[in-house]
């Protein structure tokens, strides 16, 4: 090859790099490893990472069963090792799969249309707010305080530089958004109201009532859905204008927080303001049905600084996992799956309520609930860790006013015996704290 090119050594090809910036030493990175060593190294790391623990953690990342056909199919090289389907004739598989994904997401969310995916639920929510600002021509947004706290942080980061003022609306003792406060906060400058349902506390919002408040003032309603399985049994937010969803629950591994699968769905009239890729149906010159990426004039590679978003690469292969999961469970299975989640959660919340306080009991919930203990939940969780159990997420970090409360989650994978064990340990610690308090009372 060197001879064909007409050079003496490969180094000649690097002569355009000025000598003073060329690296003349080896990189200080680990030495080359054999495949067996690589596998061993990562298996070691897995052992240090909670392998074999039982978990009651949810809060935006949910542990659901992943049918094995998902990995069998997404590991086909034709899906795994292909690029964005810009050359439609050579990528019909990916394009048709995206088209089916868009259809199923639309069906489930009650929206007209959906895009091919966004990075995740948090960035999708931020993009949805920017989309609402473009549609309404209004500058600001009202955000529910019971929207996932990390989604709110991401939103803050994006909004600051878009000069979008954010106002928040708090929650009531049902865990739902405070409708009275919301009504006062929404004004003629409000582009959108952004809520989450089921919200961060697991409570289902009265979307219709919220939509009415937003629409009355000409604002759009964006509903963020972090727990996609809820859509099997909870009425979708049909009165919303944009749904910003995190679809991780649909067959995507927890993977320590990513990659996940954000997706936006909306009404037909707003599609040209929606960011992200879209697959559309068309015909070839013989009239045969086929699919292409379409409405690209919204996108950065065509419109550059005037694009709806800077997004390019999305989460295609993860969206394919979601797609296969939705296909496996389908019309009946998704509902049955959601019902099991609900049943486990009802059972667990009832058991916890016998020994500790379950907050926000006044409204319907899906698969998460908030438990307040006498003892600091970090201490409770330390005890649980001794039994290889991850307890609920302590909420103090995000909601100082909630003190000793923690967010617990049950899915179809949570067994009754896991619940009973965790409840037993919490009740023990509750009893001992109560006894200690009593002893203190007496000695005082």
């Amino acid at each position, binding site marked *: 090859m060197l001879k064909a090119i007409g050079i003496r050594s490969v180094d000649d090809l690097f002569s355009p790099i000025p000598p003073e910036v060329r690296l003349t030493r080896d*990189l200080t990175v680990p030495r080359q490893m054999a495949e067996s*060593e690589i596998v061993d190294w990562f298996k070691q790391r897995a052992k240090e990472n909670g392998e074999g623990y039982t978990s009651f953690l949810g809060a935006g990342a949910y542990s659901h069963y992943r049918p094995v056909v998902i990995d069998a199919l997404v590991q086909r090289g034709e899906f795994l090792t292909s690029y964005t389907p810009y050359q439609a004739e050579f990528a019909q598989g990916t394009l*048709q799969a995206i088209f089916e994904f868009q259809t199923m997401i639309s069906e489930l969310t009650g929206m007209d249309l959906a895009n091919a995916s966004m990075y995740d639920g948090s960035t999708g929510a931020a993009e949805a707010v920017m989309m609402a600002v473009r549609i309404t021509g209004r500058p600001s947004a009202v955000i529910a305080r019971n929207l996932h706290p990390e989604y709110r942080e991401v939103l803050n980061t994006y909004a600051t530089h878009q000069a979008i003022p954010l106002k928040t609306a708090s929650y009531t003792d049902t865990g739902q958004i405070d409708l009275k406060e919301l009504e006062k906060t929404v004004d003629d400058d409000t582009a959108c109201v952004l809520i989450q349902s089921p919200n961060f506390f697991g409570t289902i919002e009265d979307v219709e009532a919220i939509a009415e408040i937003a629409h009355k003032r000409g604002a759009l309603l964006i509903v963020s859905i972090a727990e996609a399985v809820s859509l099997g049994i909870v*009425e979708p937010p049909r009165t919303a204008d944009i749904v910003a969803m995190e679809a991780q629950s649909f067959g995507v591994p927890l993977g320590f927080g990513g*990659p996940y699968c954000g997706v936006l769905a909306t009404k037909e009239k707003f599609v040209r303001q929606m960011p992200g890729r879209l697959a559309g149906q068309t015909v070839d*010159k013989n009239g045969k049905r086929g699919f292409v990426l379409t*409405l690209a004039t919204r996108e950065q590679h065509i419109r550059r600084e005037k694009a709806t978003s800077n997004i390019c690469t999305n989460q295609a292969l993860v969206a394919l996992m979601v797609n296969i999961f939705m296909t496996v469970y*389908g019309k009946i299975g998704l509902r049955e*799956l959601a019902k099991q989640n609900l049943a486990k959660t009802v059972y667990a919340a009832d058991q916890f309520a016998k020994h500790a306080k379950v907050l926000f009991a006044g409204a319907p919930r899906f698969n998460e609930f908030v438990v307040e203990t006498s003892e600091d939940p970090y201490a409770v969780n330390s005890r649980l860790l001794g039994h290889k159990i991850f307890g609920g997420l302590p909420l103090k970090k995000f909601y100082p006013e909630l003190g000793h409360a923690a967010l617990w989650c049950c899915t179809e994978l949570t067994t009754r015996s896991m619940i009973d064990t965790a409840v037993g340990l919490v009740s023990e610690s509750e009893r001992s704290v109560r006894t200690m308090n009593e002893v203190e009372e007496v000695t005082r």
Partner: protein
Amino acid sequence: MKHMTSKATRHISQNEGLIFEKSSPGKAAWKLPPLDVPEVDTAKLLGKQERKDLGNMPEVSEIEIIRHFTRLSTWNYAIDLGMYPLGSCTMKYNPRVNEFVARVEGLANGHPYQAEKISQGALRIIKTLSDCLIEITGMDAITLQPAAGAHGELTGLLLVRAYHQSKGNARKKILIPDSAHGTNPATAATVGYAVENLKSNDRGMVDVAALAAQMNEDVAALMVTNPNTLGVFEQEIHKIAGLMHAKGGLLYMDGANMNALVGKARPGDFGVDVMHLNLHKTFSTPHGGGGPGSGPVAVKKILEPFLPKPVVITKPDGTLGFEYNRPQSVGRVRAFYGNFGMFIRALAYIFANGPDGLRQTTEDAVLNANYIRKGLEGVYDLPYSTPSMHEVVFSDKVQSKKGVKTMDLAKRLIDYGFHPYTTAFPLIVAGALMIEPTESEPKEELDLFIEAMKSIAEEVEEDPQFVLDAPHNTRISRLDETAAARKPVLRWKPENA
């Protein structure tokens, strides 16, 4: 059939409808275990919030699902089938050991909120990859949070803005060469900066004199891709950095083309202040039909205080942890910690290569691109004779005289069993053919590609219409994109709905 090389032959491919067209009531591919807690009355629990019907969701059996997606997959081209010379996309081999280790129990199932002391394995992976990437780029600090390259650009420019703000003036604009990726200007706009175009010189590089004239105290940063989208190394990068720094500006590097530099030169050594990497390009994580990517952002010390939070730190007791107390941070750009699964794959790639392998990878990538350049020089017009690094850009100047454009040539290349190169980009080349073979291709595959491209050039001379009508061998011929955009059909609906 006109000319044909030995790369591809036509083969039976299965027809397959939409999944909804196969659905019928009663078919199922799922099974839940028996419920071990009492049944619940959903109507009573949820009231008006209860969903009664899931609309047109499919009902199909498992074998139908396997066949459906397998059949669809066979309609795709992929790296696993052959060379995928999309310039700027770095379609290199995606090692299977990466996929294997990413699925190891404990890593694949780790919850982002599990206790830190039980997350030491994941934190160690983040820390080790961070250290490797800092060394490879010659920078001082890094965040792995951004989910893709464009998201990394966004993060990088947020850091630029925060830095200038800390000096009392956020500045107004970003300079971007006319050869840049579309994400660059789109990102600048997202961060609230105006975009000012910078003309390339006749060698396809940043025009240093023009830069000197355009650079002033309103400019926050220059976004440069190096090697640039012509595959040309910016030889005056030192001068460029000097000009930026002299007026208080920063130098941003789009790391899309880092595959030409790893182990041979480090951006930190040539004046770059902030840059993003694409783990799905340089570090072999799969493109997956368009993602997931991962876009770490590496910075010099001056930008470290502004990095997104949390950052991974080593605690006094030697364990690793997340540090949230970062008062100058730009905030979060994504929930949790980024596309962790891609970190595993990228790190496995670095382990599999080591220092020698990483350097050789770069050398082979540049060697392969130059071999193609030599093979096609004279057949296709080479608009810039400047030496190529990891990719080479030709134009359709010769063929367009016969009415055949870069996209037509690309469609004909499909018939030969290759994925097309990148068409019509960079914008500074009219009718560009941007070819990036990567290090993964053996000489045999490169020879087949050269042969195919030569053969197509001959076809253009003999029968241009035949090339204009390509592809001839695919399941479907060219699709009507105008109709798709004019009356968008973006979802399936039942016929009588």
